[in-house]
C-alpha cells in the first residue's frame, strides 16, 4: 500500500503553485508563472500516469477485485467524538481514472494557455487560478469522504467563479460568474442538507463505509420514511441536486452557457472536461447507495439525464455562438453519462451502464476539450465567437481543422473513434433498462451529429468572410495540445474499460452489440449528411426551416426561456418583493417601533415639561399651597 504514498503530491503541488504564483507572481515576468504552472502540472501528470499504470496493471488488483487504497488520511476536524472529517487520498478505479483525465486535460490546457493568453493582463493570475482549480478538482476526486468532497466541491465552484470572471472589467463576464456561483451554490444547499441527513442517520462521512454493499449502515435506514419517502431517498436526491448543479443538469443548466464568458481554455478545462462531470463522478461514487437503497432516485437520475440530453441537443442546433453550441453539447453529453448511471445495474454485465458512463466521461473529456481548444484556436484567429463571422477557415487553420474534424467525428459516433465505443455502451445499457430513454438517446445521437457538423461546416467550409486580417494558424504551443487530445480522442476508445472501471470493481467482458451499434452509426451518418446538405454550401434551407417552425424556433433559440424564468424569480420575486420588503419592514416597522418608543418619550416629556415653568413665584405658590394643605391636614384630620 505504501507504494502510493507519493499521491499526496498530486493535489499538493498545484496548491503550492497557486500560493507561489498568487503571492509572488507579479514579481516575475508573466511567462515565468505560465511555465512554472505548466511544468508542475506536467510533473503531476506523469505522477498520475504512473499511479494509473501501477494501480490498474500493478498492485491495484487483488484477487480479481480492484482494491480501494487510502494511502493518506488525516483528521481535519472532529464534529463529535464519533463524527469526524478527514482529509485524505482515496484511490480506486474511478478516482485513478479521473486523475488521468484531469491531469491530461489540465496539462494540455496549461500548455495551450501559454499561447492563448499571451499578452493578456493578469497572465500570472490566470495561471494561479488554473492551479487553484487543479488543486480543488484533484482534491475532489481523491476525497475519502463525502464531506471532503463537499469542501473541494465548493472550492472548484469558487475557482470556476474566478476563472469565468477572469475578464472582470466586462460586465457580462461578471454577471456570468455570479450566475454560475449562485446557481451551483443553490444546488450545493441541497447537497449539504443531503449530507446532513445521510450523516445523521449513518453517523459517518466515509465513502468506504457508506458504499460498502454488504455492511453499509445506510441499509438499515431505508425503512425510515419521511413524508412517504424513505429518508435515504431524500438524502440521495438532495445529494444528486448538488451533482445536478455542478453538472448543469436540468433545471440548473442555466449557468453553463453563460460560463462561456470565461477564457476558452477555461471552458475547455472546467466547463467541458472536468468540473462539470463532478456531478457524474459524485453519483458514480455513491452509486452503490443509489442503486441498492434509493432505486427511485436512480430512476430520477436516468430521466433527468435523458431529458437534459435531448433538451440541450435541441437548443444547440439553433445557437450561433460556437462556444455556446459546444456548451449545450456538453450538457447533452453529460446527460448521457447521467442517464447511463441511472439505468445501470450493479455487478457483472448488469453494471454496463456504470462502466459506460465512466467510459464516456473519459472519452468525452478528450474530445470535448479538443473541441473547445479548437474553437479557441478559431476564435483566437478570427476574434469573434459567432459562426456567421466565420467560413472557409480550413485553408488558414489546417491543424485546427483536422483536429476539430476528428473531434466532431468522434462525438458524432463514427466507428473506430472513441466516442463510438463509449456511446454504444450507453445505448446498450439504456436499451436493457427502458425503451423510451433508449429512443431519446437514439434521437439525441442523430441531433448531436447534426449540430456538430453544422458547426463544423459553418466554421471551416462555405465562403470566406471579411476578416480584419488574414486568419493564421495558432502557434505550436497551442496546436500541440490539440494534437495530443486528438490522439486521445481517437485511441482512448480502445482502452479495455470493462476490465478497469466497473461497478463492483471486478472485470467483465463486453462486446459490440451490432443490433444497437449499426442503427446508431446510421443515425449518426444521417445527421452528418443533413448537415452536409444544409451547411456545406450556403443554402437557404436552414432559414426556410426556421421560418416554418416559427414560434417553436424562437422558443428554442431563446433556450425555452429558462433564463427569463430564473430572472423573473430572482430579480422580481426575491429581489424586488422579498428583500425590498424585508428592508422596508426593517426600516419602518422594526426600527420604526424603536423610534416610536423614543418619540413617545419625547412627546410625553414635552407635555410634562410645562409644569417646570421656571417661574419662581409659581413654585412658591405651589409650595405655600402645599404647606397650607399639609397644615390643614395635620390640624383637622389628624387632630
Amino acid at each position, binding site marked *: 500500500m505504501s507504494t502510493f504514498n507519493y499521491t499526496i503530491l498530486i493535489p499538493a503541488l498545484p496548491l503550492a503553485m497557486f500560493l507561489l504564483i498568487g503571492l509572488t507572481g507579479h514579481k516575475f515576468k508573466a511567462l515565468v508563472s505560465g511555465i512554472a504552472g505548466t511544468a508542475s502540472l506536467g510533473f503531476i501528470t506523469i505522477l498520475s500516469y504512473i499511479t494509473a499504470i501501477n494501480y490498474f496493471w500493478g498492485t491495484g488488483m487483488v484477487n480479481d477485485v480492484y482494491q480501494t487504497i487510502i494511502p493518506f488520511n488525516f483528521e481535519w476536524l472532529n*464534529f463529535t467524538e464519533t463524527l469526524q472529517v478527514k482529509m485524505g487520498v482515496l484511490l480506486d478505479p474511478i478516482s485513478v481514472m479521473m486523475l488521468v483525465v484531469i491531469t491530461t486535460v489540465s496539462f494540455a490546457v496549461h500548455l495551450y494557455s501559454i499561447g492563448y493568453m499571451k499578452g493578456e493582463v493578469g497572465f500570472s493570475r490566470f495561471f494561479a487560478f488554473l492551479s487553484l482549480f487543479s488543486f480543488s478538482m484533484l482534491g475532489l476526486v481523491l476525497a475519502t469522504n463525502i464531506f471532503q468532497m463537499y469542501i473541494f466541491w465548493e472550492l472548484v465552484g469558487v475557482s470556476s467563479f474566478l476563472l469565468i470572471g477572469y475578464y472582470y472589467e466586462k460586465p457580462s463576464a461578471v454577471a456570468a460568474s*455570479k450566475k454560475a456561483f449562485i446557481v451551483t451554490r443553490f444546488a450545493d444547499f441541497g447537497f449539504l442538507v443531503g449530507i446532513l441527513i445521510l450523516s445523521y442517520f449513518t453517523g459517518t462521512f466515509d465513502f468506504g463505509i457508506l458504499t460498502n454493499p454488504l455492511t453499509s449502515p445506510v441499509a438499515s435506514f431505508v425503512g425510515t420514511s419521511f413524508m412517504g419517502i424513505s429518508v435515504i431517498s431524500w438524502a440521495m436526491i438532495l445529494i444528486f441536486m448538488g451533482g445536478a448543479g455542478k453538472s448543469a443538469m436540468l433545471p440548473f443548466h442555466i449557468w453553463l452557457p453563460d460560463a462561456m464568458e470565461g477564457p476558452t481554455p477555461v471552458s475547455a478545462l472546467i466547463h467541458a472536461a472536468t468540473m462539470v462531470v463532478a456531478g457524474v463522478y459524485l453519483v458514480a461514487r455513491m452509486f452503490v447507495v443509489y442503486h441498492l437503497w434509493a432505486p427511485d432516485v436512480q430512476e430520477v437520475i436516468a430521466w433527468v439525464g435523458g431529458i437534459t440530453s435531448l433538451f440541450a441537443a435541441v437548443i444547440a442546433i439553433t445557437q450561433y455562438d460556437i462556444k455556446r453550441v459546444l456548451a449545450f453539447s456538453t450538457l447533452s453529453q453529460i446527460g448521457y453519462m447521467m442517464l447511463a448511471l441511472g439505468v445501470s445495474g450493479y455487478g457483472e454485465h448488469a453494471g454496463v451502464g456504470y462502466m459506460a458512463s465512466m467510459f464516456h466521461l473519459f472519452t468525452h473529456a478528450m474530445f470535448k476539450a479538443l473541441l473547445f481548444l479548437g474553437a479557441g484556436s478559431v476564435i483566437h484567429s478570427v476574434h469573434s465567437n459567432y459562426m456567421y463571422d466565420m467560413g472557409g477557415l480550413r485553408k488558414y487553420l489546417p491543424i485546427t481543422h483536422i483536429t476539430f474534424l476528428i473531434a466532431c467525428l468522434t462525438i458524432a459516433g463514427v466507428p473506430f473513434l472513441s466516442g463510438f465505443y463509449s456511446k454504444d455502451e450507453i445505448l446498450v445499457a439504456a436499451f436493457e433498462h427502458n425503451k423510451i430513454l433508449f429512443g431519446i438517446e437514439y434521437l439525441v445521437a442523430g441531433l448531436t451529429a447534426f449540430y456538430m457538423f453544422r458547426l463544423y461546416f459553418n466554421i471551416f467550409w462555405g465562403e470566406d468572410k471579411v476578416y480584419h486580417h488574414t486568419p493564421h494558424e495558432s502557434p505550436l504551443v497551442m496546436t500541440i495540445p490539440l494534437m495530443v487530445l486528438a490522439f486521445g480522442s481517437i485511441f482512448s476508445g480502445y482502452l479495455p474499460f470493462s476490465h478497469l472501471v466497473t461497478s463492483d470493481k471486478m472485470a467483465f467482458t463486453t462486446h459490440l452489440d451490432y443490433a444497437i451499434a449499426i442503427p446508431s452509426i446510421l443515425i449518426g451518418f444521417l445527421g452528418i449528411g443533413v448537415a452536409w446538405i444544409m451547411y456545406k454550401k450556403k443554402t437557404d434551407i436552414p432559414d426556410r426551416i426556421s421560418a416554418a417552425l416559427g414560434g417553436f424556433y424562437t422558443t428554442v433559440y431563446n433556450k425555452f426561456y429558462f433564463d427569463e424564468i430564473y430572472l423573473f424569480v430572482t430579480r422580481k420575486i426575491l429581489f424586488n418583493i422579498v428583500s425590498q420588503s424585508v428592508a422596508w419592514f426593517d426600516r419602518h416597522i*422594526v426600527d420604526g417601533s*424603536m423610534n416610536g418608543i423614543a418619540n413617545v418619550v419625547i412627546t410625553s416629556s414635552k407635555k410634562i415639561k410645562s409644569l417646570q415653568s421656571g417661574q419662581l413665584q409659581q413654585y412658591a405658590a405651589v409650595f405655600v399651597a402645599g404647606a397650607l394643605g399639609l397644615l390643614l391636614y395635620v390640624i383637622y384630620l389628624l387632630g
Partner: protein
Amino acid sequence: MNILNLLILIPILTVTGIAVSKSMDAVRKVAAIGMFLQLITSIVILFVYMGIRKSGVTDEMVLMSDYTWFTTINIHYTIGIDGISAAMILLTSIVVFAGIFASWEVSNLQKEFFISLILLATGVFGFFISIDLFTMFLYYELAVIPMYLLIGIWGTGPKEYSAMKLTIMLMAGSALLIVALFGIYYLTGPADGQHTFNLLELAKNTMSLPAQRFFFPFAFLGFGVLGALFPFHTWSPDGHASAPTAVSMLHAGVLMKLGGYGIFRIAMYLMPQAAAEQAWIFIILTSTSVIYGAFGAIWQKDLKYINAYSSVSHCGLVIFGLLMMNKTAMDGAILQMISHGLMTALFFALIGMIYSRTHTRIISEMGGLMKVMPFLGVVYLIAGLASLGLPGLSGFVAEMSIFFGAFQHDDMFHRVATIMAISAIVVTAVYILRVVGILLLGPIKNEEYKLLTDATWYEKISTLSLLIAVAGIGIYPTWLYNMIYESIGPIAAKLIVY
C-alpha cells in the same frame, strides 16, 4: 502575578502613555506598541492555557486569582480563563491591533480617540477574564460608554442620532441584565448562606424553576440586544454606518460577541432548565434573524449597511447555534463568533479604507475598484468568500459545525429551523457577490477613481493580521475546535444535551 492581569495593565499603561505623549505620531506609535504587546500577551496566554491543559488539569477555569473587593455584598475581583475565553481574548487582541492600524490617519482629537478606543478594549478584555458577575458587568459598561463618545465625536453622517440610539438600546439591555443579575444573586441558593456573584459558585447551585423562568428572558434579551438579536438589532445598522472605522471593527468584531458569550456563559449556564424550556421562542427569532438579515442585506445600497445586516444574519447564527444545546453546535457558535469577529472587522476595515479614497460608501457609485486597488480588492474578495462560507476560510468550519450540531435534533421544529438557517448560505452568496460584482469588478465608473492608490503599509498590516487569522482558522481548525470543545463540557453538561 497572574498573567491575566497584564491584559488590563497593558491597556492602562498604554492609555497613560498616550495621555502624556506630545505629538500625533507619538500617540499612534504608543497605541500600536501597546496593542502589539497585548497581542503577544494574548498569544502567550493561549499557549500557557494549552500547556496547563496538556499537563492534565481539568478544572473548569484555570489561571484563577481572587481578590475580595467589597465584603458587604461579597463582590470579588475574580479572574480566570477557559478555552472559550482564551480564544475570545485572542480574537479581541487581533481586532484591536488591526483597529489601531486602521485608524492610523485619524487627525481630529487623536489622543482622545485612541484613549477611548483602548478603554473600550480594556472593558472587553476585562469582561472575558472576569468570573465574578458583578465585575463582568462593570467591565461591560466600561466597554459601552466610550462607544457613545467614539461614534458621537468621530463618526460620520447622522452620528449623534446613531450614537444616542446605540447607547440607549444597549443601556436598555443593561437594565434588563442587571435585573437578571440581582435575580441570580439573590435567588441562587448559596451553600454557606452567603450570596455570591462568583460564576463557578453559582453554577454549583441552581435557581428554582419559577425563578429561572422569570429571569432567563431578562438575561437572554439583555445580552441578546448586544448580540443583535432580531428584532432588537436596529441599533447595529445605524450605529455601524455612523461609527468611525476602528469603532465599527471593534464593535461588530468584538463587542457584539459579548452578547453571545454572555448568553452562553451566564444565561444558559446558570439557568439551564429555563433555557431548555424557552429555547423554542428564541430559535424562531434567531432562525428568522439569519434569513432576515441576509435578505435585508441584498437591498442595501451602503457598504456599511450591507455589512451590518450581514452581521445580523451571522450573529443570529451564533445564538441559533448556542440554542441548539449540544456540544457540536455550541462549539460552532463560538467558532462563528470568532470567525465573524475577524471577518466583519476585516470588512469594516476595508470599507473604511475604500471610503477614505472614494469618499462614498454607496456601491452603485463605485465600480471596477479591483483595477485601481488590487490589494484591497483581493482582500475584500477573500473576506467576502469567508463570509459566504468558503472552505479553507474560517466561516465554513463554524457554519458547518452549527449545522451538523443542529441536525442532531430529530424533531420537525428543529429540522425546519435548521434548514431555514442553512438556506441563508445561498442568500449570503447572492449579496456578497452582488457587492463584489458592483464594487470591485466591471468597468471603472468614475474617471477620478483611476488616480486612487492601493493600500499603504499600515493598512496592509491591519488587513493582513485579520486575514491571516481568518485563513489560519479555516485551514487548520482542529486545535481551536478541540480547545473550545473541551471547555464547553461543563456548561453543556448542565444543559439537556441531545
